[in-house]
């Protein structure tokens, strides 16, 4: 017997009736818990594992923010690392120029995260408005070109005024201010913002643009607005992730933000399932951990990594979670294969 999908109705989008204050309270509680976990981890956890966790946190921000552009709005972008680079360099250059002391550290760091995000968002507008007229592969190529331009420019600039940028040698000895709490707070905010944005009445046009742009426009959706909005929000969080990664290792290398990095983020989105936020989180963790797990294989490590990737795409092309979320099975959206 074939099972048919239930009719596509508005109730599919409705959440079970959990009062708003309870959700918000739980999220605030989560922030407090994060604070305490962060305190404990910073003191007791092995630096190797802490570093790995922080990389996962950054990967989550990148994957979820790209998912908004790529998976949810269906605009194939290959330049996400470019936005990340904008944020990373804004954060890195300012921190290196004026390293804060004592109590000023968290305040300045928070400010820098927002500033880096805004700079990347501005870049998102700059790139998005002209290129979003393009579709599919052409958009991918244009964003790829943008990402490459960013790395070439960063390779060439030695300094802006008295601010050191580093050029092709990279920017080194940036004060290390990232910690567990900041990274996962940013990740939490990113996930909540994207989830609330797309699983709300205001967010349905994002999916509409992905499923059929022409039909969406015919139904009165301002497609350009939603595409640019996805680009700007996605770029903002990529910028935040950039600031975090700049202050995690203390070193910035323009080559690290090239095409390969963008591809890595796209892989997380596709592997997790385009359009699935929880899928992106899962894939971000898996793809960050996988090279570490394979460390025992030594020189064959990345070969096996690539083989696993190909096998996963061959055996499960829709990604780990497909179009679904990890727990909201009722909220599965149109499972239309494109």
């Amino acid at each position: 017997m074939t099972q048919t999908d239930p009719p596509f109705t508005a109730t599919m989008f409705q959440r079970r009736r959990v009062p708003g204050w309870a959700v918000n309270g739980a999220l605030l509680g989560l922030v407090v818990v994060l604070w305490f976990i962060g305190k404990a981890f910073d003191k007791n956890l092995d630096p190797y594992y802490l570093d790995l966790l922080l990389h996962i946190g950054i990967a989550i921000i990148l994957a979820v923010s790209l998912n908004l552009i790529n998976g949810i709005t269906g605009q194939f972008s290959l330049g996400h690392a470019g936005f990340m680079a904008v944020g990373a360099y804004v954060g890195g250059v300012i921190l290196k120029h004026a390293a804060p002391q004592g109590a000023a550290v968290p305040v300045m760091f928070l400010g820098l995260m927002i500033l880096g995000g805004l700079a990347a968002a501005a870049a998102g507008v700059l790139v998005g408005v002209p290129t979003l007229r393009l579709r599919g592969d052409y958009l991918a190529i244009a964003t790829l070109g943008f990402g490459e331009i960013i790395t070439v420019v960063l390779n060439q600039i030695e300094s802006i005024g008295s601010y050191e940028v580093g050029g092709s040698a990279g920017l080194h000895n940036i004060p290390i201010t990232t910690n567990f709490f900041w990274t996962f707070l940013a990740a939490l905010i990113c996930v909540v913002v994207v989830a609330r944005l797309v699983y709300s009445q205001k967010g349905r046009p994002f999916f509409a643009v992905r499923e059929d742009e022409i039909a969406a426009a015919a139904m009165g959706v301002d497609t350009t607005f939603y595409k640019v909005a996805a680009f700007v929000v996605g770029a903002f969080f990529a910028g935040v992730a950039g600031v975090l990664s700049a202050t995690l290792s203390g070193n910035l290398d323009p080559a690290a933000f090239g095409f390969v990095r963008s591809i890595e983020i796209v892989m997380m989105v596709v592997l997790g399932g385009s359009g699935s936020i929880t899928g992106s989180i899962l894939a971000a963790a898996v793809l960050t951990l996988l090279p570490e797990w394979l460390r025992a294989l030594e020189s064959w490590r990345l070969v096996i990594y690539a083989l696993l990737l190909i096998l996963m795409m061959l055996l499960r092309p829709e990604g780990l979670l497909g179009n679904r979320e990890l727990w909201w099975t009722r909220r599965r959206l149109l499972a239309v294969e494109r």
Partner: protein
Amino acid sequence: MHIFLQQLINGLSIGAVYALIALGYTMVYGVLKLINFAHGDVYMVGAVLGYELARCMIGLAAPLYITLPIIFLGAMAGCAVLGFVIEFCCYRPLRHRPRLVALITAIGVSLLLENLFQNPHLFGAAPRNMPRLFDIKPIISIPAAGGAAPVTMSNLDLISLCLCFVLMIALSWFVLRTKMGLALRAVSFRVDTAALMGININWVISVTFMLGSALAAVAGVVDAMRYHVEPMMGLVQGIKAFVAAVLGGIGSIPGAVLGGLLMGLVETLLKGYLPGGYSGYSDAAAFFVLILVLLVRPTGLLGKPVAEKV
């Protein structure tokens, strides 16, 4: 003026290599609508094969007119097999899946090839120099007026240009004059209708991959002689050739040639004429041109505009 002429020759010679790689991108895109990200790495494998063959041949001390064809043909054959295997194992099972899936698989194949050859048991990450088969020296030289340096063309430039043009003529003969070429054009026009007309789609697609890979192998061997061989050489060169394909109009075979030559010219001219501190920006300029072309004429210089169907 003679500097300009010299840049023109250098640009054409580099552009011919871009054109060879771009042809592979454009043919595959024509039949499968797939951006084959592994193509740059097939080019790298071509260079590695050329290097290994050259190492074998140098021991035999055979004359150049035997050595060179063996190196080129061997690399072409090896890469054709590789292209066939990649298509058969990785892209064929995903043909009816969303295009993004095939794209990610292509990236996976590219990662696989890069990392496989970086493995010290196979090739290793360090760049290696091709054994010296012949001395690269200027063979054509046009004296310039007023005692300035003459405009020269090295034997390698000549080989790469001649090879590229011969191969392009052969390819256009193949595409325009043979039955297989007709089938190829039919498939790139519309796959399902071509299948209804009795064309063996799978075989046509395989042939497309083999042809593209063989052309990339020639480009790889030429670049191996000009620069050096390393596992990551396909990345940048691949992206640039891809940009060239888009510039000329992806899916269009003459477009890929035009795009490749233009790309080489733009790059060398910018490197030569941008003021001192800014010549490093010439790479960015190539992409800037790309974005401009996409915005003004998204289908490229020779691509046909496609009407949108609802």
